[in-house]
């Protein structure tokens, strides 16, 4: 869901000259930036790590020139500051722990843990970046966390048992799947009031919004359908049967395809959102793994539409897929029961939650390698990453 927000930002960016400019300018220097930033991060970490031993111990056993020490310190601080400038915060909802872990994406470590309500799952940032929204299903609400103070400052009338949500491109409207009541609730975020409901299939779950915001896709787990909802009329305009237990829906950013994951069916249905037809099914085969263990859940696609990542649940792997040919390029071994994912805004890193092993794996998107795992709270479920 967090990418819901990122996507809607990007979508809005298509109509917004400023956003467009900020998005396009880095492109020419992308390769340079790509190399320098992880490097800077490494240096920064090294320097920070080295800074402490360099400080004279209490009572001063080793004599350091105070000037040299302060220079080193200043240098370390400066580097740290540079790193901070492009560090993002990743917010991870821990379903069993009732907490949200905050990870500094530059340090790749947890910097803070926030207590939230019962059973936090779907998580995302509002378009203005002011709030982190987290579905606390067992409290029947969506909590609003202030992104600056990290305190819970309010709640949205989500309807019962909210699990996932999607933002409208204007950032003002939120669409929430209510798993217990076979419906999607529409909420005005600013006024914090419900605007209406749409009745869908049994156990609505995945929520995806078309780039223009006109078409909402909701998946219902026991009905096994992707329901296409016209956001203007709030009427269902198409229903597409997919394989068992559809979990997640993701539009390509050019709006040409919707991908829906079927957890029990073990496939991704690639749906034509104009004809409302499945045009391709992507299946997964991993040597040595039985078919039943391959359970696709979270889906993320890069902004250029070239690569898609699919979290395969108890297969403990993320599939990297060529989004044009729909062929699996590589399976990346991550933690146990991999569930949801989020890119950093520069799309260099992908953070994935591993529910059973209580950690988050970090994938380097360019090299398709898992570079780190970070311990978080109990049963991490969703992840969202701040834009600044």
């Amino acid at each position, binding site marked *: 869901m967090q990418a819901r927000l990122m996507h809607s930002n990007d979508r809005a960016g298509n109509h917004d000259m400023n956003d467009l400019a900020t998005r396009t300018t880095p492109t020419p220097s992308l390769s340079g930036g790509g190399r320098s930033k992880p490097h800077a991060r490494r240096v920064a970490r090294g320097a920070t790590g080295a800074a402490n031993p360099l400080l004279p111990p209490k009572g001063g056993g080793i004599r350091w020139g105070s000037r040299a020490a302060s220079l080193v310190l200043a240098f370390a601080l400066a580097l740290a500051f540079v790193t901070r400038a492009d560090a993002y915060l990743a917010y991870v909802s821990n379903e069993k722990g009732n907490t949200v872990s905050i990870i500094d994406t530059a340090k790749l470590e947890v910097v803070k843990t926030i207590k939230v309500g019962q059973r936090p799952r779907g998580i995302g940032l509002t378009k203005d970046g002011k709030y982190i929204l987290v579905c606390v299903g067992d409290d029947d609400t969506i909590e609003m966390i202030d992104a600056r103070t990290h305190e819970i400052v309010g709640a949205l009338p989500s309807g019962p048992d909210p699990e996932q949500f999607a933002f409208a491109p204007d950032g003002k409207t939120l669409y929430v799947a209510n798993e*217990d009541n076979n419906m999607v609730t529409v909420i005005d975020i600013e006024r914090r009031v419900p605007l209406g409901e749409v009745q869908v299939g049994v156990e609505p779950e995945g929520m995806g919004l078309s780039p223009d915001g006109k078409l909402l896709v909701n998946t219902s787990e026991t*009905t096994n359908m992707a329901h296409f909802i016209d956001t203007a009329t709030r009427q269902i305009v198409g229903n597409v049967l997919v394989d068992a237990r559809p979990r997640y829906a993701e539009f390509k950013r050019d709006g040409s395809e919707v991908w829906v994951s079927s957890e029990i*069916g073990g496939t991704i249905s690639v749906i034509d959102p104009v004809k409302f037809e499945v045009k391709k099914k992507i299946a997964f085969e991993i040597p040595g793994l039985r078919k*039943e263990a391959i359970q696709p859940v979270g889906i993320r696609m890069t902004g250029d539409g070239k690569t898609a990542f699919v979290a395969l649940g108890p297969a403990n792997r993320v599939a990297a897929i060529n989004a044009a040919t729909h062929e699996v390029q590589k399976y990346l071994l991550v933690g146990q029961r991999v569930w949801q994912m989020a890119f950093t805004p520069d799309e260099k890193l992908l953070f994935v939650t591993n529910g059973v092993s209580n950690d988050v794996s970090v994938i380097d998107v360019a090299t398709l390698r898992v570079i780190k795992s970070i311990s978080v709270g109990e049963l991490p479920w969703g992840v969202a990453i701040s834009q600044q």
Partner: protein
Amino acid sequence: MIGARRDGVRPMIRRVIAVATIVAGIVLGGAAAPAADPAEIRIGYLRQPEPKLALSLLQVPPDNDGVAGAQLAIDDNNTTGAFLNQRFALEEMRLKPGDDPAAAANALADRGVSLIIAALDPDALLKAADAGRSRGVMVFNAGASDDRLREEDCRANVIHTAPTRSMLADGLAQYLAWKQWRRWLLVVGSHPADKLFADALRRSARRFGARIVQERVFEDTGGARRTDSGVVQVQRQIPVFTQNAPAYDVLVAADESEVFANYLPYRTWDARPVAGSAGLVPTSWDASHGQWGAYQMQNRFMARFSRRMTALDMQAWSAVRMIGEAASRTRSAASKDIVAFLKGPDFALAAFKGQRLTLRPWNLQLRQPILLSDGRMVVSVSPQEGFLHQVSELDTLGVDQPESKCKLD
């Protein structure tokens, strides 16, 4: 706690909204919702009159045991059906003592009902199935766990959603093996069903390397399941009954008739855990099961029926959902299309067990994980890690194809 905070009125309002939305959808949706009359799929439900007894008040079966599960699945199917222009209905038929199950199956077939959920004992089930066979009736066995119905007495027109005794026993035995509780004291009741479960447990012990150090029989000498001061006698009786046993790790009880097993925990002479018909019980469903989305199912059931969902409810739900699944995949209300899909390679059911459930093609048994519950919590779910199989790990539970005596024609 589940469902307690939800009021009863809201679901009804939702349902009204649902109907309104669907009607609006049909009017406005065009291609999405065809305007023709929905295709109707009527499903029969045949049930036994037998009064069931239980030692624990909590386990006395409710009057709508099983039927409620079928009704919930009808609701679920209809929610889906609203998008596909299909309608599902349940026709319940309750046999009275002495009623002929064959006549009941024929009566349903006369009314054009050819898909029948059965919660019957094995002989009654076979009579109903054999009567319906020439009339194209497919029976879904939701109630009988007898292995013989999937073995020497298997039928091409009976699909089984109830797990077999051998599946239940294997599910338990795998966990006991994982726990290294390999020395079993087996206590068997004196009724035929108890003996059949004991047979399954002996087979499981052999398969998974457990040793039955001794067997004892608990004779049913008649009498009521509950009396006002019965607990006093039970407390004296059970320790003595379990005294002087060879060294053992776990007491395994086979008591489907609810005569003694629930008296065993905390009363054995030696301090040992109890499993089987009491203590750690293998089952297809438990009211405490919440994993893999089961929480939603439990909430839905509680909101609709104001009670917890039983294993029989789940087995009936699975049967009706299988029919719904086949009807939506084939977009057909014809039972021959539905049955062909269920027997084909594309059928899979999502039933809150963490993996897809499929049919064993050689005897039409639904493959399924087995929950191990102590009545308060699901302790574990079998197959256990490390029990491997070349086709499906679910086939480590119960009689496998190479050993099967079933020949479908």
